[in-house]
């Protein structure tokens, strides 16, 4: 019969028996297993099987050394190179993957979304400049007002609140409260000269429009008031707020753009260029290490 006794034991008994064989049980466990060994033939047979198996393993001869393993300085150095290669290879792969991902996002995402919108805004802004018909003085006033506004928004806000209170009924003024803090004090430009382009009246922002709005917010507000007849104040106000914030950002961008043409490059382009350079460096280093380690 070939059925083995060790397989009839529970896992717990098998472990106890194996540990007993090696003298690894404590005194209490040893006494308990010895008492059971006297009573249970199955346990005795299993112990014998384990003893024979362990004995066979212990009888295995030592193998002769095929050579000595003493290290040389070259072996230690070449080992460093061997580990540099996989590390560089992994880094190259990761950076290339990120590069491809960024390109993908740029091509399939930005071109269809924000890229087109930004282009439209820029085109509209350029078209709106002559329509605004703002003379040089008005522009100077605007710059002055803007500077004032930048110096102390808190101070600028007060007259605006008052202006808003004069212009609007109380409910609307409260709803439009988020706008005032971004507005600058009134200027001398009459409202008639500040004809609002259709796009702006519909709540769409312009880029250059802000250069006038900053110094001319009351007129704009008044103008808006006249054109809000067809809209509810709640719907229009957020659009104006967005216009103002966007315009400030655009204006700042324009000012910086005049300083350096590189600043006009989209950040994603800079990222792509940086990643491309990194890819080239890493791949070159990987190839160099690979060639030198051969």
């Amino acid at each position: 019969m070939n059925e083995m006794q060790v397989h009839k034991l529970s896992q717990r008994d098998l472990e106890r028996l194996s540990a007993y064989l090696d003298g690894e049980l404590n005194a209490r466990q040893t006494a308990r297993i010895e008492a059971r060994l006297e009573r249970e033939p199955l346990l005795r047979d299993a112990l014998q099987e384990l003893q024979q198996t362990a004995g066979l393993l212990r009888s295995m001869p030592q193998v002769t050394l095929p050579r000595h393993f003493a290290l040389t300085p070259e072996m230690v150095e070449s080992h460093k190179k061997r580990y540099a290669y996989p590390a560089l290879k992994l880094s190259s792969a990761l950076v290339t993957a990120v590069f491809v991902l960024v390109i993908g996002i740029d091509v399939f995402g930005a071109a269809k979304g924000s890229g087109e919108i930004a282009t439209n805004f820029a085109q509209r802004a350029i078209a709106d400049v002559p329509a605004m018909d703002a003379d040089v003085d008005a522009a100077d006033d605007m710059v002055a007002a803007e500077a004032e506004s930048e110096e102390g928004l808190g101070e600028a806000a007060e007259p605006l609140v008052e202006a808003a209170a004069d212009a609007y009924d109380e409910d609307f003024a409260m709803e439009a409260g988020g706008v005032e803090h971004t507005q600058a004090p009134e200027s001398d430009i009459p409202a008639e000269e500040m004809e609002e382009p259709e796009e702006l009246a519909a709540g769409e922002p312009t880029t250059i429009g802000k250069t006038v709005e900053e110094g001319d917010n009351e007129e704009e507000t008044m103008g808006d008031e006249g054109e809000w007849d067809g809209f509810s104040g709640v719907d229009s106000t957020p659009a104006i707020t967005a216009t103002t914030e966007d315009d400030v950002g655009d204006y700042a961008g324009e000012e910086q753009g005049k300083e350096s043409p590189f600043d006009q490059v989209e950040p994603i382009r800079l990222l792509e260029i940086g990643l491309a350079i990194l890819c080239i460096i890493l791949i070159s280093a990987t190839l160099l290490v690979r060639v030198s380690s051969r």
Partner: protein
Amino acid sequence: MDETELIQYAQQGDLDAFNRLIQHYEQQVFNLAWRIMGDSDAAADATQEAFISAYRAIGRFRGGSFRSWMLRIVTNACYDEIRRRKRRPAGSLETLFDDLGVPEPDNPGDLIHKPEAPEAAMERAELSHAIQDCLNRLPDDFRVVAVLADVQGYEYQEVAQVIGKPLGTVKSRLARARARLRECLQRYRELLPLTFRLEDESS
């Protein structure tokens, strides 16, 4: 110079001192690697790799048993080699030896043995081959514990240090490894010692 001094010199970058440590441990390290890998070339690679790794890491050795530390490194090197081979299987060694017509991987010339009759030497080698074949069939974790505890004869505590597991894990793995080995060895009953067969037949 004793072992502690050699370790200190090696920690300061003295390669000669480290090579003297290698000289002292290479037999044990290679034997362990051989029994875990079941192949002389793979064992030599793992051994060399382990000594290089040990030299580079000896600065982090903080005392205790240098042998356990060294055995742990070679055990990890063997695991790495096993993983590499699983990723890039190049055909089993058994198949390879069969294809080459080689009767066994640990041919008698590889073994340290006392002078004995050719027949006895051959039987001994065949038995050794049979046991190694059964070891190779064990799961990696079981095989490592069986080799450390039974083939190499280390105490449970040292085995636990080498594999970095609790004592209970060592006991459990060793017991199950022995049970599986016992089962596997039934395939080679004709090679087993008479007492082994008699006990088995009588049960």
